[in-house]
């Protein structure tokens, strides 16, 4: 790997190597720019490092202290925050879904939310590029969305947990589909196809999962980029000319400075606003890109109520990727809704520790009762939604008074559902119940969860209403960019990673074009 000196003024210093940062690092390096991509966590080696153990693999998650509050505080850590090269794509469940096209213009076409400054059509070729780069294993015909090219690899077999969703959907007359997944269904280069081990959310030791770590990062390295791991970026340094001059980062016990012509922040929806706020200086006393006070605001998650039940048959849901089947019926069919927005739901497959904790904490079950209930684990099946939530200004990331081990102010997240969010969740519980009953599940119960993080540095067309423009470029600091899930003005009803990656590819292309035209 090519290594740059701190005093080399590289073209792009990228903070974070996840779905946004890692993908962009690849695109920029392959376009001929010099790139150093920083990550607070380690450079994982899946075949060497991963054990089949939930507790041990907690090293994959962001475990520095954060505070979560508000009316509906969101669980962080292993729920939605990765730490390491590849970011959350190292522990995500590989769901690779495109957005419903209308969502990009939800305000003008569907009457709610906020229009994105880009359209589906602009992103479409990049969705295709991302799917090809990740060799998404998907069905020949996906029932929703626009006509599209065939997925690069064929779908996986659907496990029993997924077939519960399938049976239930067929029973109530709603379409379902095997999920398009970013894990291999056939060999690719040196990588092995999935062996249906089921530990996807704790690191893929098979190396079948097409995380950013094993796809875009190797390409970036080959094109001359450097990935600097175990490097916590503490501040973006500003020059006298009002532009960013580089990064202050902590590595191997010391603070160091890397010079850069451009800085891209890609730390995901908590760390990106945190870094911009922590980089406050005399010229920018409220933090960078924050003249309109929007940095950290309009944070969204996906709501995730779930419904569970017991099947007569053995399900053993922990085999194979946790989510193998999906219905997006309620993302595309708005009839009968008393709310805006959509949700999809997927079959589930939690492992033993996660399941035990959910059972105990959510159902307030302990003692012998818990041990006995847990012996029915092999018969459980469930569904959980990815539910759209509204962007609300008071849902936000702020700096707390506390400092972490680096002396940096830690983030505090505040979140609360809106009325609309709650109506959506209630409706979804009814849908999931119908599907599970249709599949023959008994003794149904409901639990709660959330997934993903979006927003905090939303992009837009108007500098007074957005943090960055449609290319992720700061309105006030021309060499400061954001490229991750914090760009999202709305949350949509599907997992965000593919959209984050497609958007990163698009931004990479835009940067390349602007450089060619001297607009950089």
């Amino acid at each position: 790997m090519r290594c740059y000196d701190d005093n080399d003024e590289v073209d792009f210093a990228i903070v974070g190597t996840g779905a946004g940062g890692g993908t962009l690092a690849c695109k920029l390096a392959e376009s001929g720019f010099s790139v150093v991509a920083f990550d607070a966590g380690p450079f994982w080696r899946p075949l060497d490092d991963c054990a089949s153990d939930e507790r041990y693999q907690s090293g994959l998650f962001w475990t520095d202290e954060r505070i979560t509050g508000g009316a509906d505080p969101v669980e962080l850590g292993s729920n939605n925050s990765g730490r390491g090269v590849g970011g959350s794509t190292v522990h995500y469940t590989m769901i690779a879904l495109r957005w419903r096209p209308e969502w990009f213009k939800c305000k003008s076409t569907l009457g709610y939310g906020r229009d994105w400054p880009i359209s589906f059509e602009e992103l479409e070729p990049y969705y295709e590029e991302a799917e090809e780069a990740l060799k998404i294993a998907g069905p020949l015909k996906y029932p929703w969305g626009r006509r599209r090219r065939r997925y690069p690899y064929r779908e996986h077999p659907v496990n029993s947990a997924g077939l519960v969703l399938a049976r239930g959907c067929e029973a109530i007359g709603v379409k379902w589909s095997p999920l398009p997944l970013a894990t291999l269904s056939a060999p690719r280069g040196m990588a092995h196809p999935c062996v249906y081990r089921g530990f996807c959310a704790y690191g893929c030791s098979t190396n079948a999962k097409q995380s950013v770590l094993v796809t875009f990062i190797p390409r970036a390295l080959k094109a001359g980029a450097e990935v600097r791991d175990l490097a916590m970026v503490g501040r973006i340094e500003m020059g006298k000319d009002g532009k960013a001059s580089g990064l202050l980062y902590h590595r191997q016990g010391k603070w160091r400075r890397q010079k850069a012509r451009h800085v891209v922040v890609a730390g995901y929806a908590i760390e990106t606003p945190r870094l911009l706020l922590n980089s406050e200086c005399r010229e920018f006393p409220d933090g960078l890109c924050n003249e309109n006070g929007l940095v950290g605001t309009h944070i969204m998650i996906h709501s995730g109520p779930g419904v569970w039940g017991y099947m007569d048959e053995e399900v053993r849901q922990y085999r194979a990727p946790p989510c193998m089947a999906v219905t997006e019926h309620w993302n595309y069919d708005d009839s009968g809704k008393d709310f805006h927005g959509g949700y999809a739901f997927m079959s589930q497959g939690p492992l033993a520790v996660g399941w035990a904790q959910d059972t105990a904490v959510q159902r307030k079950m302990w003692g012998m009762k818990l041990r006995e209930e847990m012996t029915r684990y092999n018969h459980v099946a469930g569904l959980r939604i990815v539910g759209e939530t509204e962007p609300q200004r008071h849902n936000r990331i702020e700096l707390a008074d506390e400092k972490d081990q680096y002396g940096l102010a830690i983030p505090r997240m505040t979140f609360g559902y809106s009325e609309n969010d709650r109506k959506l969740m209630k409706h979804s519980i009814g849908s999931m119940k119908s599907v599970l009953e249709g599949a023959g599940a008994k003794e149904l119960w409901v639990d709660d969860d959330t997934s993903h993080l979006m927003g905090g540095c939303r992009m837009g067309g108007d500098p007074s209403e957005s943090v960055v423009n449609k290319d992720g470029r700061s309105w006030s600091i021309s060499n400061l960019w954001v490229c991750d899930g914090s760009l999202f003005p709305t949350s949509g009803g599907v997992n965000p990673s593919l959209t984050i990656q497609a958007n990163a590819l698009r931004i990479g292309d835009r940067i390349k074009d602007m450089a060619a035209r001297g607009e950089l």
Partner: protein
Amino acid sequence: MLAPRQPEPSRRPLVPVGLAVVSAAAGIGLLVQRAVRKPRDPKLAAAQAFGAGAAVLCFSVALDSAIEHYRGSFKDRLMFAGPTMATLGLATTAWIAFRPQDARKTLPRVALGAVGLTGLVGLGFHAYNILKRPGELSALNIFYAAPFGAPAALTLAGLYGVIAGEMLSDREYVRTRLPRHAAALIGFSLLGTVAEAGILHFRGAFQDPFMYAPVTVPPLAAVAIGAAALSPRAAEVAEPLLKATALLGIAGPMFHAYGIHRNMGGWSNWSQMILQGPPLPAPPAFLGISIAGLGLLPLLEKQPE
């Protein structure tokens, strides 16, 4: 400074391995061809070829159905019928291959009839297995449920064995029309096997370029032998194509062994990979069909236009 040491998805030596496998298969094929003593009488030779071809088909089905039905945990007790009848078929057709003159006897014909019938019943079961799942006749089930056409190989083996016996008769039908009909059957057999391999290689996204082999060469052989049914002069073209198809039948298991090696844990993970990996005993179906086809060519050439 932690340097990245993990193997990224880069390249495996697919082409050198493929070429090595094809050469090895060609070597084996030539050796076997030299070792086999063909009867002088073309009718006897054809009977032997059909017997040998059927034996190879039975061998392939016996192993393949045993492994796949084991994967299905023999949930339905009738699943034992597949490998059992295929083994019976193997014994019967091997007998015919060694003593083609016995092909007309009643015992082998009855056994082969039962074997062929089992294949037909198997087709029904496999169809039901696909249709009973959510999605019914969907790509997902065609990829992963019971492979629809696989039991047909048993029916074909039964038919080939019966044809072997018919070859020895003096009936006018046998002298004038059976060779042509048998050629059409060979063509049809090849296309069916191409479809099976094609579906599974398509499921594997043709990630190794050699996966195109069974969907390019055998269809040409099928067309050639089909043409030979109509015009005996096409038999000349059919011969090298059938030999190439036979070669694929020998190379296939070697390629599949490499495929198992390429999966997680390779051969040390055989308890998983024999089931998940590409099926080792499936490709010899091409060999069996080609042996029968090649044995038919001398008879076809002698047919009037």
